[in-house]
């Protein structure tokens, strides 16, 4: 295999990547860039190809076409057997954190973390520094089976970061952990990655994980990246209704669009129309935080069907009179309305316009 020339680019650059298993296309024409130090999440349902993409970047599998560039160095270009370059995974210098951590069970924690280091590197204090970074100082002599799931995952991240890779790949790293641990570890991992300074690409099917960990999210569906942006972009301006639902609780209304507003069961609402949907029947999307208590003497009368107290917030299931439209709202918990009672609401901000479903 010819070695590839060095180019200047992002920490990770993927262009035109495609992969099929037999006749089934798994990835089609994927373009993706990760800036140095950035954390990008690949978010999508299982089977959308996100893990395949990660494996192609790592070099565990070969793409049918397209190229992968790591830190400006092309590592894969063109199909297997073609004339393009191909760098095997052990010469790519990436960090890899698989599902469940997968520590080497026959090595203690220190040897696990030092696995990717040279003998000199192992003695240089790097192992201890990495354990310190992930909050596992003093655990070096433990064996993997003596650690909890969260501790194992932390050691796995330390192991991946120890050789100072430019890019770390994380494959659903929190999958095996319970919900509570997930939440705390997500924030921690983001801090660790940021302190470590490596760019990271994380595969996940969990929106909250992606939102907590990533600077940028790439939403995948059926082998394609359908949207890229910050978590806020993704929540505020999803490209389609499926993505809107993936980004968080979404309420859908039918309406008729005329210019900058639309007529709906909730009255005339101002809209955002970034996709340029033409006037006429449309679908409109509202987020729960847009449904607020109306100023006294105004607003639309709705019935509270259910009220769930969630600590500082109350989650309300509402419906308009006659049950025409179901709404959700998230209010501060002070004096929450009771189920069956009526409240007055108004819509704050604008509704997002999509073509009718």
């Amino acid at each position: 295999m010819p070695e590839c020339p060095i180019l200047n680019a992002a920490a990770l650059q993927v262009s035109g990547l495609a992969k099929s298993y037999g006749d089934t296309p798994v990835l089609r024409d994927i373009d993706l860039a990760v800036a140095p130090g950035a954390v990008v999440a690949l978010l999508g349902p299982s089977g959308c190809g996100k893990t395949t993409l990660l494996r192609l970047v790592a070099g565990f599998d070969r793409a049918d076409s397209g190229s992968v560039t790591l830190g400006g160095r092309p590592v894969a270009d063109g199909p297997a057997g073609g004339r393009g370059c191909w760098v095997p995974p052990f010469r790519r210098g990436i960090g890899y954190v698989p599902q469940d951590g997968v520590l080497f069970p026959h090595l203690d924690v220190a040897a696990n973390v030092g696995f990717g280091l040279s003998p000199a590197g192992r003695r240089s204090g790097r192992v201890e520094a990495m354990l310190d970074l992930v909050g596992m100082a003093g655990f070096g002599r433990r064996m993997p089976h003596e650690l909890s799931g969260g501790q194992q995952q932390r050691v796995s991240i330390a192991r991946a970061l120890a050789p100072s890779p430019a890019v770390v790949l994380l494959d659903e790293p929190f999958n095996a952990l319970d919900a509570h641990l997930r939440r705390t570890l997500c924030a921690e991992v983001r801090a660790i990655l940021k302190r470590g300074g490596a760019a990271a690409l994380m595969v996940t099917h969990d929106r909250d994980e992606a939102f907590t960990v990533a600077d940028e999210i790439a939403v995948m569906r059926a082998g394609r990246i359908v949207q890229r942006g910050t978590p806020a972009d993704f929540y505020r301006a999803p490209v389609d209704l499926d993505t809107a639902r993936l980004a968080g609780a979404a309420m859908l209304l039918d309406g008729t669009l005329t210019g900058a507003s639309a007529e709906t069961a909730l009255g005339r609402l101002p809209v955002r129309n970034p996709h340029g949907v033409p006037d006429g029947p449309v679908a409109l999307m509202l987020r729960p935080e847009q449904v607020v208590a109306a100023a006294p003497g105004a607003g639309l009368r709705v019935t509270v069907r259910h009220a769930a107290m969630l600590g500082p917030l109350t989650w309300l299931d509402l419906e308009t009179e006659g049950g025409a439209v179901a709404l959700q709202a998230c209010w501060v918990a002070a004096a929450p309305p009771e189920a069956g009672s009526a409240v007055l609401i108004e819509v704050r901000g604008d509704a997002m316009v999509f073509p009718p479903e």
Partner: protein
Amino acid sequence: MAEAAFSLSALRRRGSSALARRGSSAAPSWLVLPLVAVALLAALPLAYVAWQAAAVGWAGSAALLFRPFTAALLASTLELAAAVTLGSVLVGTAAAWLVERSDLPGRSVWRVLVPLPLAMPALVSAFAWLSLTPRVEGMAGAVLVLVLAEYPLVYLPVAAALRGMDPALEDVARSVGHGPWRIFGRTVLPQLVPALSGGVLLVTLHMLVEFGPLALLRVETFTTAIYEAYELSYDGAAAAMLSAVLIALCLCVMAAELLLRGRRRFSRAASGAIAAHAPARLGHATLPAFAGLAALLGLALGLPVAMLAYWLLLARRAALPLDRILSAVGDSVQLAALGAVLTTAVGLSLVLAAFRRRGRMAVLAERLPFVVHALPGLVVALALVYFCLRVAPVLYQTTALLLVAYALLFLPLAQTALRPAVEQVPPAMEEVALALGRAPWRVLLTVTLPNILPGLSAATLLVFMQLMKELTATLVLAPTGVRTLAMELWAQSSQMKYGTAAPYAALLVLVSGAPAYWATVELQKRRGRR
């Protein structure tokens, strides 16, 4: 013949997990080489038959094939296989029912004793019976001796199935007024079919390829006839044509096994906790049942052990040829050790290829053991001699050639023992090591091997024990001057020198039989727990 007991049933478990694992670049690409080598070797017996047939031409082949002698061999081989299989099914099932389902006194002791004849190599028990009376020579005697050696292979799976059955089904049958015989016939027996058919195919296959005990007991089957034809004229076409029929028979059994495999998975009992069965009351039948089991063990185990003890005590007065015995032990250990290491190494590369690569290579690595398992050892040995003399005569009668035969014949056993160990190592573990900068061969040495070490040593030990008693391939391929324990036992008892044969027989039981028993019963237990 314990080896195949678990190799077959474990081969059967394949397939369900095939989709779950992915191939990966963690597998060194040279894994393909042993795979191709094994595939070529496995094709040798067929090539040998084809070459020989071509050499004598169509008419000559047909004349050799379609003659009364072949028909007679076919009849006696099938008669032996059918009789031993039927006998093993009856004895094995009855013993399993008594031990697992009746109120027979001392069931926990019987549970240990009844499968114990596994520890007695058939060659040794054939020797023991012969040394007692020449009347066991011939078909009836052979059936008796072999049923006593083979019934544990039916007993073990059937006993496990009886243990695992849900008693609720039998309660239902009882509640609608079925009597005990009807319950057994309508409710229990259908659930036993998977276990029984596995045992049946295994015993049948053993009978098709069995050689040593049959030669001692003077029963003419395909194997003994092929050996005679080979001894008379080294690579005669006659031996090849008989081999063709034998290979066809074995492949039929293997095909039946493959056909049954799919259905069998459905019939596995639920894995949850199962209520204990209330033991059936034997009543007046207690004494006959007890006596029957005692007689069974007396014949299968007591008699051979007693005969061995008799001949050994007798021999103590004379001088034992210690040098000769020690040299046989040395030859056996050396061949078995080298063979075990080679077999395990080849087996490991095939298991890794099956687990870590994708596409045709993985499928080939997955299915090859089925084919290899059905190859008669004698035919493999003859094919190796035939091609060795034509391609590389310098290898003829070398240890290397014998080791190649060992590696091929015991590959299914090694693979069975290695597979669970390799399954424990997730591909992700090797991928992490790759990502951390280790080349594939270093990943194999520093990650994969350390994590499968227990399975690796168990597999090596298992193959070693089986090789210690291997006779057929060793007889044909052993270098001049090499005499293993099994060869000595065979040679001495063929000449009716029973006193001289006894020490070799006793050593064979000690070094190979007992551990084989332990390993089989352990594996059976482990599977039962799953």
